[in-house]
């Protein structure tokens, strides 16, 4: 089943807070179904960018458009996955209950919910853990649960804020592939924030590098690597290594 797809547009977006310029002159477009990785040093405003797109904050200048329409408040079309998954899940509800929250918010009739929840949990590899509380799940599973909840919204756009930053390397790799698989199935548009260079290259169709103080776009790189990606072969691909070198140098220059 293919979901409604959307195009994103940032036009000369700026954000000022308390007299300081956080983001400046942000302009780029994202095509339907594109996977864009956002990378940059700490404090470059990448999280803020996501929050602007999610409608949690309003820009001081410029326009943000989703499918041609301006973004003013949170929309069901856009789902946001936080890095601190522990704090974004309801500790008093089971995995089922947490996914159900999104469905309840959408007004899905109670009769339809169990089936949809079960499908989402299966999709994110949580089939046997439906009745567990977040405190009984590992970090990786909690993050999957958050992803499952975001998917329950049937979002056209998936925003992910360093979702795997707090997880160990092996779990991270497993989840990277899982996200790619899910996104490919649904054809969703993804904006993925990370500080991990390799992750940005592995996942994205395009990498946008942000410079800090104030946050602005430094580079945009196309990633013409073949899909589906593979943890072993893609990372050994000569093009991957070339892009990696380019990206690494670009980031070093920024820090200098």
């Amino acid at each position: 089943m293919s979901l409604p797809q959307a195009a994103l547009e940032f036009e000369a977006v700026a954000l000022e807070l308390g007299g300081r310029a956080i983001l400046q002159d942000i302009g780029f477009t994202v095509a339907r179904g594109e996977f864009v990785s956002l990378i940059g040093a700490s404090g470059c405003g990448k999280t803020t960018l996501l929050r602007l797109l999610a409608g949690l904050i309003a820009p001081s200048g410029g326009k943000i458009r989703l499918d041609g329409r301006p973004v003013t408040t949170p929309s069901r079309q856009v789902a946001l996955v936080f890095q601190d998954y522990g704090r974004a899940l309801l500790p008093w509800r089971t995995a089922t209950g947490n996914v159900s929250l999104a469905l309840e918010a959408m007004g899905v009739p109670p009769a339809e919910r169990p089936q949809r929840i079960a499908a989402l949990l299966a999709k994110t590899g949580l089939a046997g853990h439906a009745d567990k509380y977040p405190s009984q799940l590992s970090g990786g599973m909690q993050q999957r649960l958050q992803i499952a909840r975001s998917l329950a919204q049937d979002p056209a756009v998936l925003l992910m804020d360093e979702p795997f930053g707090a997880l160990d390397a092996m779990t991270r790799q497993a989840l990277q592939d899982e996200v790619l698989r899910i996104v490919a199935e649904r054809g969703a548009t993804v904006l993925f924030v990370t500080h991990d260079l390799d992750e940005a290259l592995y996942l994205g169709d395009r990498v946008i590098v942000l410079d800090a103080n104030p946050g602005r776009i430094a580079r945009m790189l196309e990633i013409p690597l073949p899909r589906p990606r593979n943890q072993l072969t893609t990372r050994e691909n000569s093009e991957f290594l070339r892009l990696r070198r380019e990206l690494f140098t670009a980031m070093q220059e920024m820090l200098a």
Partner: protein
Amino acid sequence: MRAWRGGIVPVVLLALAEIGFRLRAGPSDSLAPPSRAIAALLSILGDGSLLFGSAQTLGSLLAGLALGSLAGLGAGIVLASSELLRRLSFLSIEMLRPIPSVALLPLSLLIFGFGYGMEIAVIAFATFWPSLILSHSAVGQIEPRLMEVARLLRLSRWQTAAKIILPAAAPRLMTALRLAAGLALVVAVTAEIVSNPQGLGHDLMIAQETLRPERMFAVLFWVGLIGWGKNAALLRLERWLFAHRGDVDTSIAA
């Protein structure tokens, strides 16, 4: 074996008291050995007078606690929802709160006369303030990330209150209730000692006035037992309700 270590000290103290008393010459109007106190305890338990007094005290306690904590809860939620209201009212709260509830007993007596009314009124006043402050902080300390999730999912005000705010604040509200209940017992017994001729506090004073120290100690122990038992029961309830959540700090065993 470890659990018994805490119990050694009271047992030793009681034994010493018993021996000390036996060694004294003659009976006393003001003190009694533990053996006589235990006997007195059993006797007043048996003839129902202790239970009757307990019922009176607990009756006032429950009514006053319900009034005070519900009002405090409501006010706390209202304050937590409006920054302006909070800033307007904080000084008034800080000025009214320190008035010792016991100082209100004469006034309460004036208005309601002897009986349940005056005691309930004072207990309600006393429990209102901690309930207000604790419920205000309970609602104010809700994980902000969860409130953002509510915004992202576009939950309505009622949905947010019912699905996020109340469950998130519930453990702290429960703790607030437990602390208020402890306070309510103290205020109830105090009211009965100072002015209200009913309940366990009154039993204590009567025992003292009629020079029956063993009875006095028996009632005193009973009061302590009620207080401890109530706290332990509520703690159990808290743990049972919220332990699975992993977001609760059950270490506040005040």
